[in-house]
């Protein structure tokens, strides 16, 4: 027990202040009504869906929970089921084999809901594009509210994008 406590004290508090929302990342404005924002406030539950990424975006989404970014301190947490979620955080391009699963996750998420597309592939289809096996960008399959580019986006860019989905517009 003592070595653990010593290690916790040695590491200290390292959480950093959150960045502010990046409004430029908003793909839609009409869906982000005032009522929705009022309802969600800044307590947000996210369900992550990997629709076909290279796993790079997942690594950076994981990083959001590390002590530096400490996403939970902002009242934002990840849920295991889309039924508990306010927001779907979707990486990809959408692989054809994942299309049905992604649509079902979207349908299972209760209204009002938000969708954030993550990464260059999620925003445009990226290097994988569209083909027999690939549907391209997330917006080709479900409606997207905020799109965060980057290959992969850094944790800070991810937080800016997630906050853009819920913070009131300036």
């Amino acid at each position, binding site marked *: 027990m003592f*070595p*653990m406590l010593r*290690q*916790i004290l040695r*590491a200290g508090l*390292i959480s950093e202040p959150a960045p502010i929302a990046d409004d430029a990342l908003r793909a839609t404005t009409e869906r982000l009504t005032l009522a929705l924002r009022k309802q969600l406030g800044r307590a947000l539950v996210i369900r*992550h*869906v*990997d*629709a*076909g*990424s*290279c*796993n*790079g*975006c*997942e*690594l*950076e*989404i*994981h*990083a959001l*929970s*590390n*002590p*530096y970014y400490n996403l939970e301190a902002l009242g934002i947490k*990840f849920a*295991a*089921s889309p039924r508990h979620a306010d927001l779907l955080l979707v990486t990809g*391009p959408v*692989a*054809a*084999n*994942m*299309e*049905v*699963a992604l649509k079902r*996750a979207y349908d299972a998420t209760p209204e009002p809901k938000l969708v954030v597309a993550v990464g260059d592939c999620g925003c445009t289809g*990226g*290097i*994988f*594009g*569209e*083909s*027999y*096996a*690939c549907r391209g960008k997330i917006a080709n399959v479900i409606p997207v509210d905020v799109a965060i580019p980057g*290959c*992969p986006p*850094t944790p800070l860019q991810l937080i800016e994008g997630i906050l853009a989905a819920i913070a009131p517009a300036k």
Partner: protein
Amino acid sequence: MQFLDQAIEFKLLADHATLTYAARVGERDLLAFCSAAHRAERRLVALWGSDERDRDTKFGYALHLAFDLAEGLCCLTLPLATNQPEFPDLALIFPAAERMQRALRDLCGITAQDGDQRPWLRHANWPADHYPLRRDTPDLRFETANEDYPFVRVEGDGVHEVAVGPIHAGIIEPGHFRFSVMGENVLRLEERLGWKHKGIERRFVGMTLADGVRLAGRVCGDSTVAYAWAYCQGAEAIGGTLPPPRALWLRALLLERERVANHLGDLGYLGNDVALSFGLAQFSRLREDWLRLNARLFGHRLLIDRVIPGGVAVDLTAEGTLAIIEQCQAVAAEVRRLKKIYDEHAGLQDRFLSTGRVTPQLAQRLGVIGLVGRASAQAWDLRCNHPFDPYEQLAVQMAIERNGDVAARALVRFAEIAESLRLIQSIAAGLPPGVLRTDVHSAPERRGFGWIEGWRGDVLVALETGVDGKIRRCHCHDPSWQNWPALEHAAIDNIVPDFPLINKSFNLAYAGQDL
């Protein structure tokens, strides 16, 4: 050259970093060679196919196999008849071949006779006769359909099935696991993967050698350096180019940094999976420090697009060298402290020990490789078995454990972090001076192979150019192909709630093998 006392004449391919041999064989010689390789306890590295109808009307398809022999990488090509591209089921000799054969059928329409004929990458979302890697297959789109996949059923009183995925409960890649359970005990696990198939191999066709590296670096995001380096080895072999020494040393530095970053992440999550969230907080802090230094020195946290044909896109300054050495020493001390805490934590050890065992005998039979293999006494590590520059000069110490359980896989990670930290410091201190890249000029109709020990295991890239010097075929092989089947065995007789822990201790790639 002949190997394993077989009458097959191999040709040494020029300009490869690892000694690489190739030969064309007939079916009978191929089977004899496979049996001989199996008897000699050598291993199958990869299996793939190609459409050669534009070159040969009678034998219009080809099956390719790569083996790890003591002498180097050994590639066999079996020409197959245009009207009936079939070959004998090789999974009877090398069980790991089974899913590769199924994928080959989905992509090229080349069939293993009497093998498992269920599709692997194709989930009914394109027609069964649409073979994307055949050269005359048009670029079409199809309606999504719902597949009814014939899982193997376990029958009996009280047996029920638990279906998990493709979307999992955490921040994980998609895959489907079908457990047959009795109470809490797993009787059988069957995996269904291929959800992330994006048509990468078809995408490669027609790309220039220079462009292809971007795609290779995005096959599997956590192993981007390994894939990009393997791809570049292939491209450099085609171009007859030798990268400058400084570039090779910097590539090794990046590869070892990738290994440490992944191991740090995994050790944190292994702690978290046994309710020691302290471990996740500590290791994810170290991982973040690690990635931030990557961003500061190399301009990218995960090192994507840093390795390019002919060399590297980054350099290391004297100040950067100091920062790296300083960080290695700090992380080494921290990891030593955390290892002691893990070692002495009764609750953690209770969950780790004897959980998800793959015995050395089973690992040998299944052909388990990489980190998971080394935790089950399988001494495969290219950096030691076939060391190329700069590993030849660094004398890498292989991490080996025998117990094959979650604890052993954690111990291998701890040992490899320590060794990689030593390597990184040696590389940073011994970095030769000179330029960072040389030009790679493509050549028509040439083959090049790249083979790199990534953090999961060895990654193979088999590259071939067409008459125009552009990519004709590029096959990327992830070590997860060999190790996914072992996870099915590791889960047997464990309780369902331990599966996430076992799965994490393997941490296999979905994207890397779905392609």
